[in-house]
């Protein structure tokens, strides 16, 4: 077959040393004609190919990426390609979230003796990439900011959210405080919430002395997922107060052995939803001409009762909880903590129906690939690279050794451009595949409100479809990308 007509494109190939590289060699020895667009990188095993390699190539200007390893059940490291298969299939379903055509990426299996097969694989793939043409660059996409992005979701919560009467709430809180006081002597500290710098903000509280426990508060301002602090208390006994969603993060940490079950005491409280501070601010600011002269004028007091928040002060208001509730609460089906040495509050709170696609994902779903590129370009443009998203994430445990900042390996540059910023978000999302409990801390922590949670939600949907798995539900489960099945139920073997 003649070399493909027209201009060469940049196609990167990651080839396993033992099979596919040998296969390509066999094709060469057999004098099979092959397209010349492919740049081959030899790797010890397809299991060595981190999906980040592929994304880095595609964001960096490659028009296509081909990964080729040994046939399943034929790995020279016995299991490498089984792991690769799960990771690469997950990646393929993730690429559209970035506006990258998944057809620009392919993975396949070619053995050392299959010179003819290699020739077919590489010719077919390169021809397909030629049909797609040059890959559009994310930094050249037209900025696209749909009105709905980060805006108000019309969707009502799946179950009615209502805070109990003030008296009942106070009684539950007092019971919780009692249990914490009783447990405190044998613990380093118990992590909860207290009132923050104004009536509208709660802040984490580290209770060490019995009098600290009096400061503990409960209500819809307790937005923080305190499980984030647990891994740093290695080998020390510590207590943590959790909402239903936070308990899933604790389960995930236990499951991955990032905290020891003997060292953590969980104080659970049934939750009626937490607020999205940006929405509250926007609602309070609504009457202000010129889009609020100063964005952070705070009310004197805020109280939750029934289906709303009562705001007292200069501009008294009654906000409906359903209007200002955090996005994740709209589809929450775990209001009662899934584990806890103690569970207080309305432990029989009805669980909602199983969540389908979160509303914020619908925004991304409704876009064309081109719009998605423009969307991320416009959103990432204001990223400060502060890494609050990463540091607030309970599952980001590399902390001071994150490859985002490492010079060796050198994954991202210090350049302030969209590509590097998005590359980091992809790293975060890929590292959380099958581990993310969608607590939303990444997005809540972002000081410039970039909707980074939707990347993880997209990834989670892929993981659910492929492996029928949800993170943070079962302490004894293994995250799907840390495991494999010899026969995968939902992955068809890719024969190019």
């Amino acid at each position, binding site marked *: 077959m003649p070399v493909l007509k027209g201009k060469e494109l940049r196609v990167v190939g990651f080839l396993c040393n033992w099979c596919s590289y040998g296969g390509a060699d066999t094709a060469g020895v057999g004098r099979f004609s092959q397209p010349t667009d492919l740049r081959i990188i030899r790797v010890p095993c397809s299991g060595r190919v981190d999906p980040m390699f592929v994304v880095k190539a595609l964001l960096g200007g490659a028009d296509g990426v081909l990964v080729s390893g040994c046939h399943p059940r034929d790995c020279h490291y016995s299991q490498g390609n089984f792991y690769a298969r799960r990771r690469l299939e997950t990646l393929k379903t993730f690429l559209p979230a970035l506006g990258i055509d998944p057809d620009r990426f392919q993975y396949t299996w070619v053995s050392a003796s299959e010179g003819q097969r290699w020739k077919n694989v590489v010719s077919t793939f390169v021809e397909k990439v030629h049909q797609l043409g040059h890959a559009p660059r994310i930094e050249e996409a037209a900025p696209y900011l749909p009105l709905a992005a980060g805006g108000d979701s019309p969707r009502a919560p799946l179950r009615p959210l209502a805070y109990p009467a003030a008296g009942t709430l106070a009684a539950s809180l007092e019971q919780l405080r009692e249990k914490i006081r009783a447990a405190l002597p044998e613990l380093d500290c118990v992590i909860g919430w207290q009132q923050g*710098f104004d009536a509208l903000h709660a*802040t984490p509280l580290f209770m060490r002395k019995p009098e600290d426990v009096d400061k503990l508060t409960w209500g819809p301002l307790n937005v923080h997922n305190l499980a984030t602090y647990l891994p740093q208390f290695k080998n020390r006994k510590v207590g943590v107060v959790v909402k239903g969603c936070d308990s899933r993060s604790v389960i995930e940490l236990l499951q991955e052995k990032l905290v020891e079950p003997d060292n953590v005491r969980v104080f659970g409280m049934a939750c009626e939803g937490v607020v999205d501070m940006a929405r509250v601010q926007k609602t309070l600011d609504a009457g202000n001409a010129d889009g609020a002269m100063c964005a952070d004028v705070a009310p004197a007091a805020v109280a939750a009762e029934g289906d709303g928040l009562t705001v007292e002060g200069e501009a008294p208001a009654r906000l409906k909880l359903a209007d200002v509730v955090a996005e994740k609460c709209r589809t929450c089906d775990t209001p009662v903590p899934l584990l806890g040495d103690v569970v207080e509050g309305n432990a029989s709170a009805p669980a909602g129906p199983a969540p389908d696609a979160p509303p914020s994902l619908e925004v991304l779903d409704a876009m064309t690939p081109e719009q998605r590129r423009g969307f991320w370009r416009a959103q990432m443009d204001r990223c400060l690279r*502060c890494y609050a998203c990463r540091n607030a994430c309970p599952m980001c445990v590399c902390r001071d050794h994150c490859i985002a900042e490492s010079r060796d390996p050198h994954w991202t540059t210090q350049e302030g451009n969209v590509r590097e910023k998005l590359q980091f978000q992809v790293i975060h999302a890929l590292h959380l595949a099958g581990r993310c409990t969608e607590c939303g801390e990444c997005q809540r*922590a972002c000081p410039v409100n970039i909707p980074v949670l939707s990347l993880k939600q997209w990834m989670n949907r892929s993981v659910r479809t492929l492996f029928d798995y949800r993170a943070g539900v079962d302490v004894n489960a293994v995250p799907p990308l840390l495991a494999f099945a010899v026969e995968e139920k939902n992955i068809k073997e890719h024969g190019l």
Partner: protein
Amino acid sequence: MSFARYIARGELARALDDMARGRVTYAPRREGDAVVFRPRAEGEEPLLARATVPPKGVIFPQSERLFAFIREKDPNDPGHTTVRLDSTVDIEPALIFGGRPCDARGFHIFDRVYLNGPHRDPYYAARREATVVVTLACNKAGSTCFCHWTGCGPADTTGSDILLTPVGEGADAGFVAVAVTERGGAVLEAANLPEADAARSDAAQAVHAATQAALDAQSPARDLSATPARLLERFSDSDFWRDMSDKCLSCGACTYLCPTCYCFNITDENDGGDGMRGRRLRSWDNCMSSLFTREASGHNPRMGKALRLRNRVGHKFSYYPQLHEGVVSCNGCGRCITGCPVSVDIREMVVRATEANEETPNA
């Protein structure tokens, strides 16, 4: 050289066009739920909301190329390479509109380090000289505002070229514009605006006084003159710093949102894998990151978040004032508090450090 002009609310966009003639204007714009400074198109109605991110990036970019390097092999002696540097700096005249006095004063904190210190930074100097700062005085006190503690204030003119004060309401709404510097004067003249009459100038004064009063009512101003020494006394009190930093996530949001944080990192980035071409970049760095102090040996003198936070508070309220005639390198804008994912409150740390020492003078 001070004179005042009046800009009617409806005239603002036009006046801004005239003031910015020949300059790139950066004005606040809403993106998602954040307000950021973006280049403004002619005629565009600017947003008056306080920006989430201060405009410091206009003069001190988040990431800037210091120079490019190109290595060339000597054709006669392939083992020998020469390095060529390209240090062209592309700087356009700019105008920043709509920052607050705390934002503008940030440039003054920078100036002491990058312009008037022992070394003059040519990149900073060029941008600073090419940029006119038009500031909007505050008419509201935010719950995290504490500029009146730090020597700044709702109508502080330090670092600004022109100060705008919103006056009047409804159909009578407008701005009193005061030229602070000669450069500001020239820019304001160009807008061809009517003189601000005495009534309007008085109204502007009243807005300043009212905002100041609102701030005082919210939290009485603190005398920070003893704080530098007090913080040093607290330096090795590890329990104190642990308590202060317990909830800190050690991200860098506070430093990047801070109009006075000026620390940077320098890295060489290769273009292509052969190391023959590349760029030297200067980018924002932050003391909350472990990499900030990690030494080549792998040793890190500031291992934990408590020591990092201590440095942040210490730098702003102790080390900097001791080097700069008592000027605090915090303008009390409160963005580090508002933008912090867990609401770490720098005011609380400063107050507690000072008060705790009063209780136990020999601690």
